[in-house]
Structures are given as structure tokens and as C-alpha cells.
């Protein structure tokens, strides 16, 4: 329940408002986590926020967090320099069901910063590529300037065993890719709907339409998983802030089978 100090060893600027921090423990420590889990990151004296783990689960000695500066704590996280220290509690929450998905086609749909919690899942799938069928990454961002992990995306796009489609809501000169919301990529993705597992993360409105578009292609809500976001203070189900209907997003989620939360997902202001 008490934060442990980790040192910032690398800061990578992803976009104008988003950075990726690489952290190493101040004392030797292995930190096993599952793709989709999150940590509570604490900046001395400022506060603590839940941030998804974005690193490769095969590298448990290092933590990678991609943070968008949207509030006091995330702004403080984004202004950290190499050598600074943050407090870490975790890992918390449920994971993308990467093992259950073996033998199936995997469709990963991300919107904006929603790619951050999906990155470890894609790393896992690529590290165990032979166990999966077709693998598709569909990624939408507002503009080309908002794309995360740009170099890695380009590398992934160069692979023959992975379909990567990227779209932006609005583009300027110099963009030759797709323009439109991420759901417009679903009809062009190559997967067998009856044999597909989909992992979706992004704004709730994006997840709602993604589930609908997947359903139209024949993917059952039973096979769709989404990652939810809520205010969190404790991360262990005590503070009550993250309640979403009967679920505590911190411990029952953040990754949920869509069919299990559909009833509350439809209601406004739950």
C-alpha cells in the first residue's frame, strides 16, 4: 500500500502532450505484470494517479509508462527528467486474456492514448506469434501529430505476420494514410469473425462504436474485451471511486469482457 521509489532512466517525447517514461527500481527488484494491468504513480508531494503499464511483459526489471499531461499529477509526471524518482504501487487489476486468445485471430483496436495499455498485449502476442491466427492492429488518433510509438508502429507495419492499419480523424498536408474514425478500419481488417478475440481501448464513445462495428462483422460481445478508466485513489477496492455498476474498475477491471458490463455501459453517468 506504500509507494516504492523507482528512478526515471529515460524520457521519450511521444507527442506534444504525451511522454513515455522508463523506470528502474532503486533497489534490485523483479516486477512481473500481465498485459493490461496498471500502476499507481506518485509524484512527491503532488499526488498519485493510475497509469497503465506499457512495457514489454518479458522485461519485468523495467517499467514503461506512457502518460498524457491532462491534470496536476500527469503534468508533473510529464515534466520529470532522467534521474528523478517516482513512487510506484502495483501492479493492479485484470489483464487482457492473452492465453485464452491462443488459437484465435486477434483484433486490437486502439483510440488515442488507448494504445498504451494494449502495447504489452501486442508485445506478448508477437513474442508468441505462432500461437495465434491472424493478428490485426487498428489504431486511430485525432491527427498525425497524436500518434504514439511512431517508430514502433512503422516497424510493426513492416511485418508480414501482422496487419497494421492507422487512421486519423483529421489530417493536414503530408499525411497519405487513412482519414476517418477507427471503426472505418474494421471492414478492411482481415480476420475470421467466428474465430476472433478483440481487445479494445480508447474513449468510451469509441469503444461503444467499435463494439457495434465488430458485432456487425459477426464478432460476439462475449469475445470482445475493453479496458475502462475511472477515478481511483486506492487501487484495491476500498476507496469506492472507480465503481462502475457492480464492478470496481481497479480490481475487477480495468479489462472487462464486454458482454459482462454491457448493461451498465449503455447507461449515461454510471
Amino acid at each position, binding site marked *: 500500500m506504500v509507494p516504492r521509489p523507482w528512478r526515471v532512466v529515460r524520457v521519450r517525447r511521444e507527442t506534444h502532450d504525451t511522454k513515455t517514461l522508463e523506470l528502474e527500481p532503486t533497489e534490485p527488484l523483479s516486477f512481473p505484470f500481465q498485459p493490461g494491468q496498471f500502476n499507481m504513480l506518485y509524484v512527491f508531494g503532488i499526488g498519485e494517479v493510475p497509469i497503465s503499464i506499457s512495457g514489454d511483459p518479458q522485461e519485468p526489471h523495467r517499467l514503461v509508462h506512457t502518460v498524457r499531461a491532462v491534470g496536476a499529477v500527469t503534468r508533473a509526471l510529464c515534466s520529470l527528467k532522467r534521474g528523478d524518482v517516482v513512487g510506484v504501487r502495483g501492479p493492479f487489476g485484470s489483464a487482457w486474456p492473452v492465453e485464452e486468445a491462443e488459437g484465435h485471430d486477434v483484433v486490437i483496436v486502439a483510440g488515442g492514448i488507448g494504445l498504451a495499455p494494449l502495447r504489452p498485449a501486442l508485445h506478448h502476442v508477437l513474442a508468441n506469434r505462432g500461437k495465434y491466427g491472424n493478428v490485426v492492429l487498428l489504431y486511430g488518433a485525432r491527427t498525425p501529430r497524436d500518434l504514439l510509438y511512431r517508430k514502433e508502429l512503422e516497424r510493426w507495419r513492416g511485418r508480414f505476420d501482422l496487419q497494421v492499419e492507422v487512421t486519423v480523424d483529421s489530417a493536414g498536408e503530408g499525411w497519405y494514410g487513412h482519414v476517418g474514425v477507427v471503426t472505418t478500419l474494421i471492414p478492411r481488417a482481415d480476420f475470421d469473425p467466428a474465430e476472433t478475440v478483440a481487445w479494445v481501448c480508447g474513449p468510451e464513445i469509441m469503444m461503444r462504436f467499435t463494439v457495434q462495428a465488430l458485432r456487425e462483422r459477426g464478432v460476439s460481445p462475449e469475445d470482445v474485451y475493453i479496458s475502462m478508466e475511472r*477515478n481511483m485513489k486506492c487501487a484495491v477496492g476500498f476507496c469506492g471511486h472507480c465503481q462502475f455498476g457492480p464492478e470496481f474498475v481497479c480490481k475487477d477491471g480495468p479489462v472487462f469482457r464486454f458482454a459482462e458490463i454491457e448493461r451498465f455501459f449503455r447507461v449515461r453517468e454510471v
Partner: protein
Amino acid sequence: MRLDLDLRATGQHVIDRGDFHVLFKALRRRGYQVVGPRVRDGAIVYDALDSVDDLPQGWTDEQDAGHYRLKRREDPALFGYVVGPHSWKKFLFPPHLRLWRARRNGDDPGFEVQPEPLPDTKYAFLGVRSCELHALFVQDRVFLGEKHADPVYKALRERAFLVAVNCTQAGGTCFCVSMRTGPKAQGGFDLALTEVLDGERHYFVVEVGSERGREVLQDVPHREASPQEVAQAEERVKQAEGQMGRTLDTRGIKELLYRNLEHPRWDEVAQRCLSCANCTMVCPTCFCSTVEDVTDLKGETAERVRRWDSCFSLEFSYLHGGSLRRSVKSRYRQWMTHKLATWIDQFGTSGCVGCGRCITWCPVGIDITEELRAIRESDGLTRGGGEEA
């Protein structure tokens, strides 16, 4: 002291009013800090008690929606009231608690975190009503989970000695019978008392609930209860059972609320609700909290403080850029649906014990039993006014 008397496990005992003060001594000798009811600020509140004289002798309370008054009784009963604005949760789940402190190491950007030592207070709760015992059981499920347990709650809860008091009268907002949580304490206590005033006689029928309870009772003058005395006590508890000020129909309650998340009654109650959070503060099971991270002026030391929070505040659901539950309607719906429905999915029990505090202490007198009834009577109504297909 009469220590030589027979203490049968199933038998009941009697402590005379004149000997009741010895219970305080017996508890204190074992290192317990006795906390219980006393009159303060025009209400019966729970606080430290020095002696039997601190108990609200001769007082009772009159309660209704948005209404609480202390009144004099015609007899010198010590426990002749129902429940006040406080509950025992304030001792086990402190309203304000420092979790840890952190200190910077000179110019190094690092810092060291020092957890707070666990409390070692041994509380003796004197006067725990049956509904309140159930509230403790409910909070046990919240804070003593299999995967995570709140260490402060655990430390205090394990040490706490519980003296239950069976209700011999019900209040105007009570509905423990509906929630099957009272008025008689059925277990989970160390000692349970039923206060009997019968003409000139004034005594407590005592039931032992644990080995610790038996040991404490050994130190207090007592005798075996006669069948008449036990019958007198039972009759009074029975009387309370018939006096419930409110009722709540719990049949199919979870599904009822789950299928009425868009019921127009939520809009209607939101017109009255002030979103003041009183109901959550007085509720003996509400457990939400927030944390505050602060530093000293020099920025060398920081600390994290946990304090009670409420789902009625706008900030409660804040998520980068705004709050998710902006309308009062959504916050009232969250509170009531959590209390009566989602709690069942989360913890296998209702979050409501029927104590009636939220009704009494609501400044505009919103009544959870009435709100549920309104939804039940027009089950399936949606905002357009039509039935859902």
C-alpha cells in the same frame, strides 16, 4: 464480587443497574478504552466514556425524515434511545487518517517513505445495536477482503470488544426488521445486554457471545437470570420489533433497481436532493474515501492523508477534464443503487442495515424506503413515460 456462580454457556445472566458501573472497570482493567453513547450538541453521539454517568440516562430520541430531537424519558433507562448521527465506523475506519510520510534525501531527487505505525488501541464499544453489528459485518466484507485487507481496520477490529444492546424500542425511521438485521443481536458480540425497567427494578439480561465476553463478565457482579427475567427481556425486544417506523420490501431488489436505472423517479428525487452527503456520512456502512497528498512549505516532507469521501460530491467521479456523474440524479442513483443492489454483487450482502440514519439526517427528509417504493410501484417506467419494451 460473586465469582463463584455458575456460568453456563447457554444460560443468560443478570447484572443489576447498581452494579453496572463495574463493567467499565472490568473493561478498563483489560486495557480497553470504553466508547459509547453520550449526549452532546443536542444528540446522542459515540465518544469516549469515563463512567456510567456519561451514558444518556433518562434520554430518548424522536426521529422522522429530516427530524431528530432529544427528549426526556419518564424513566432512568441508560439505553432508552435508538441510534444517533454517529456510528462505530468512525473508530475502525477513522474519518481522517495519515497513511504515510515521505522525506527527501537532501539534494537527491529520491525520497524515503515511512509507513505509519499500526494503531494498538483496544476499543470496547458499549451499546452496539443489532443493526450496527450487521453494519460491522458489512464493513468487514469490504475491508477484510481475501486479496486485500485494510491494515488499520483489521488491527482495530480484531481488538475491539463489542457490548451489544438489544433494542427495546424502535425509532421512527427504523426498518431493521425489513432488512433482517434486528432488533435482537444474534451473534458476533462479546456480550449482549437487554435493559429491563420493571417498576422499581432496573437490570440487564446478559448473553455471553465469546470467551472474552465470559472473562469480562466474571469480573462484574451478576447472577443467573430467572426464566421470568429472560421473558421480560424478550418481551421488550418483541415490542421493538412491532414498532418499526419504516418498512422496505427487499424482494428482487437487485434486479428491480438494475432494470430501472432510467426510471423518472431519479429525476424527481434529484429535485429535492441537495447533494450534501449527509446520508453517506451518517451511514454505518458507507466506506468511500479519498486521499490528500501534501508537502511542508519547504517541500522536504510529504504525507498522504485518507479521509472520508462521498459519492455525492462532484469531484468524486472526476476524470481528466470533468466529472462523470455531473447530475445530482446520477449521484443519488449511484448511492441508492449501490446501497441496495450493486453491493449485493460486490459483497454478497445488502449495503443497507435499516438503521434509518440517512432518512433522519437528510436535511430535506428524503426517505430511501419511500424512494424504493416509488420505483417498485411504477417498475419499468422510463423517462418518456412509457413502459420499456
